[in-house]
């Protein structure tokens, strides 16, 4: 804990040094903190929303789109880990799509969904989906494939059929990969939504907030406030999932 406190102090000190040295134009940390706490609860005049409201809008988008991604990625991942031919088939497609960063999908997504009733929202869901889907899938496939053959053979010695082996050996063994996949997927989804929000009029969202603050004249304190909250939320999400991991896997 003392090391963590020391690290934070170093960071802030470093920040002051940069401001004093005038290498770049940057507001003082204490000024940013003041703006940050103000914006948390008082609506910022240009968009008329508090930072919390922006954050909720972003979190909502990420949770919905990631949830859909996980619902598909987890069963598909376990199935790919179990059926070698399905893995060969699906991984061929996945390995081509996976290296394309979610951000590269943004222009295409906004065009693809432009005819829908809510094109911006749909495109953003899609981009988060892409961001969350692949890391989760890879993690689950990996875990399922790595089920020790000794355990499968043990189950066979107790006359388990394939369905039983899948449900009582492969699936629980994949749980680690599932939890890790959800954690990483949410992280990437969170990064993706911020970027996706920057490119279109979303009305609310932390990415959108930062972009508007830039466009109305480079309001650095507001921009850094938005970035700070993005960082905090990403950190808390990760921490929460690590805690959940310990609850769902008490044997670790």
């Amino acid at each position, binding site marked *: 804990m003392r090391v963590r406190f020391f690290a934070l102090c170093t960071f802030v000190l470093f920040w002051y040094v940069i401001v004093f040295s005038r290498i770049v134009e940057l507001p003082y940390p204490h000024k940013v903190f003041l703006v940050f706490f103000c914006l948390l609860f008082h609506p910022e005049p240009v968009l008329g929303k508090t930072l919390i409201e922006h954050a909720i809008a972003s979190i909502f988008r990420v949770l919905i789109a990631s949830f859909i991604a996980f619902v598909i990625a987890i069963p598909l991942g376990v199935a790919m880990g179990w059926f070698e031919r399905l893995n060969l088939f699906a991984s061929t497609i996945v390995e081509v799509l996976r290296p394309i960063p979610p951000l590269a999908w943004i222009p295409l997504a906004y065009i693809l969904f432009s005819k829908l009733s809510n094109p911006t929202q749909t495109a953003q869901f899609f981009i988060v989906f892409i961001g969350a889907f692949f890391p989760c899938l890879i993690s689950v496939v990996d875990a399922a494939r790595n089920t020790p053959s*000794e*355990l499968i*053979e*043990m*189950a*066979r*010695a*107790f*006359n*388990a059929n394939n369905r*039983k082996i899948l449900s*009582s*050996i492969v699936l*629980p*063994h994949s*749980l680690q990969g599932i939890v890790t996949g959800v954690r990483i997927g949410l992280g990437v989804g969170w990064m993706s939504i911020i970027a996706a929000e920057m490119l279109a009029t979303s009305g609310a969202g932390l990415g959108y907030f930062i972009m508007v603050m830039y466009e109305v004249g480079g309001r650095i304190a507001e921009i850094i406030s938005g970035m700070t909250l993005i960082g905090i939320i990403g950190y808390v999400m990760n921490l929460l999932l690590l805690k959940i991991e310990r609850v769902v*896997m*008490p*044997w670790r």
Partner: protein
Amino acid sequence: MALEVLNVSKSFNELKVLDGISFKVKGNSFACIIGESGCGKTTLLRIISGLERADDGEVLFNGKTVKINDVGFVFQDDRLLPWRTTLKNIAFGLEIRNDEKALEKAKEVLKLVGLEEFENYYPNQLSGGMRQRVGIARALAINPKILLMDEPFAALDAQTRNRMQAELLEIWNKEKKTVLFVTHNIDEAVYLADKIIVLSKRPARVVEEIEVDLKRPRDRTSLEFVGIRKRILELLS
């Protein structure tokens, strides 16, 4: 009542592993199979259990072909499921059989192996000896006719190993089963077995069947005990 292995042969590709293995084990007696590492002992157990098919020959129990449901298997590496508690691990085989009283029956076996206090422990919280007891309990829980044990104590230290041998005999006394116990440890075989089947190097053949008529608990330093050890040692070299 008896387990009969009749002329069992097995090759993997060109490599002949088992060459006409035949022996007979009396029902409810304790038999050890001994042979050098890599001589095909595990393959023989897998064939007896039905996990593997023999190229030739058959395995009978009371005159009928042995089915996989007749056997309980104990592995060298305990092969417990890390996400299951002791009790749930013991219940595994019963759950596979959709036994509604799985947990009840598992609890009884838990008592038999003396692990009541560790009912809710996960395998990584247990010692090596305890884990093997859970493995034995899991095999016993399905109430098999034959208990097949593949070097179950090989990974344990010498003291734990001796203690586990004594405990295994106690369990076997309460729960009479036909036991086929594979080992490459001569001392272990002489301590445990009513009958020792000595296998040759690969391709494995039965070199000799030795009846051990010593009273239990056996004294590992007695003249008769050492005499049998010596004879097996000569047969193996």
